């Protein structure tokens, strides 16, 4: 009996050690940013490609106010309610952050003090971003207006309120491999924008019960992760956008007009406000990628 208890304690300790090891925060090596200087103009493109303002501007902000990134937007999800934080260059935001801090936040989902972020922040996509692009983005963010808004606490239930457990979530679901294999240069450029910065899959791909992306249904739509309704299939399947030409997709991302000249509604309105700021070449690359992904039946 005593022997059995000893064994159980031993196995328990091993289990704890494994848990501790798996859930520890991962940081980038400090030298990944060595020799890189942020370029504000290039950073502006990254800002629009990443769609930062859609979540981090004040709810319902329009025009110039979209560049005041005080946060506050609410996301009601199956896991709890999340509030977008302040990422303006104010002490309530990211004023004290280095470029490396932003790299760690976007690529590893960890805060400067080593806390895991909730994946409402789409670091599973941003993880595919180039470090140099994030350094440029940081330079651009630093030029924006400081906003004094204080961050709101997320309202999350057990077990997700234990931040450490998110390390386990990342272990399972934070994958940096490309989903779509391609040799085509244009498709590769689009892939970087769609799978990486644009974080399209965060809405357009359905999730498993733990909130991990269902990679087998890549971009095939599904239930809205944040509110009512459903998200469209954007694969080239007849239940998706098979009928759209690359020119149709590019124009939609420019002006919001569909091939029928209806217009983007819902949260895509904000997305188009960002993609409309990209170059025609970037939009054409996104269109080329979306035509190259596997055609899949729409997920209900």
């Amino acid at each position, binding site marked *: 009996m005593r022997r059995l208890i000893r064994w159980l304690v031993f196995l328990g300790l091993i289990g704890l050690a494994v848990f501790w090891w798996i859930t520890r925060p991962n940081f980038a090596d400090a030298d990944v940013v060595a020799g890189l200087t942020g370029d504000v103009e290039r950073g502006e493109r990254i800002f629009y490609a990443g769609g930062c303002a859609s979540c981090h501007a004040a709810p319902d902000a329009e025009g110039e106010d979209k560049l005041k990134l005080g946060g506050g937007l609410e996301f009601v999800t199956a896991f709890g309610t999340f509030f977008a934080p302040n990422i303006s260059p104010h002490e309530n935001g990211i004023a004290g952050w280095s470029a490396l801090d932003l790299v760690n936040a976007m690529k590893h989902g960890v805060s400067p003090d080593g806390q895991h972020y909730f994946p409402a922040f789409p670091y599973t996509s941003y993880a595919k971003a180039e470090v140099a692009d994030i350094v440029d983005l940081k330079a651009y963010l630093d030029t924006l207006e400081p906003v004094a808004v204080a961050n709101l606490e997320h309202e999350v239930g057990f077990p997700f309120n234990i931040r450490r457990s998110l390390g386990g979530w990342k272990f399972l679901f934070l994958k940096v491999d490309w989903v779509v294999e391609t040799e085509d240069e244009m498709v590769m450029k689009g892939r970087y924008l769609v799978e990486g910065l644009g974080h399209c899959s965060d809405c357009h791909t359905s999730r498993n019960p733990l909130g991990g992306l269902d990679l087998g249904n890549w971009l095939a739509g599904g239930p809205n992760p944040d509110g009512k309704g459903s998200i469209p299939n954007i694969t080239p399947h007849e239940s998706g956008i098979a009928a759209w030409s690359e020119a149709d997709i590019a124009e939609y991302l420019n*002006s*919001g007009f569909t091939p*029928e000249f209806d217009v*983007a*509604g819902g949260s895509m309105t904000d997305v188009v406000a960002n993609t409309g700021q990209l170059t025609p070449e970037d939009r054409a690359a996104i269109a080329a990628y979306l035509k190259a992904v596997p055609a899949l039946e729409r997920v209900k």
Partner: protein
Amino acid sequence: MTFRTKLGAVAVILSTGFAGAAMAQDVGKAVEARQSLMQLYAHYLGTLGGMAKGDMDYDAAKAQAAADSLLAMMTADQSNMWPQGSDTEALGDKTAALPAIWTTYPAIADKGKAAAEAAAALASAAGTDLASLQAAMGGVGASCGACHKDFRQKR
């Protein structure tokens, strides 16, 4: 009518058209009328967008005619098209017009004015050259989207 007075007229129309109650059959007609108007927008945008994305050859005269017509449609009198009781709550699937149109009034009038301004900008650019047309499409799309985001039911 000059563009400025047209815009003024839009503001007046949008600010007086939302109070009146209407008979049931009038509500149906009003919904039909406003949906037809939206289809007319789409008709002219089809020409302009077709050129913008390269599906159609750019033709300055055709682009100008379509943009002028779009502006005329977007500044047409809508005062009897939006009676009380013609929202999704009252009519279900027959309309996508959310109650917020009436409960947050006059927010929609401001957005309507912004859309008319964007259409005017498109009308002054469409006949110049293809690049000007392409650049002006974004403003029109954004103003249409701004209204649909707040006031049209998601499908």
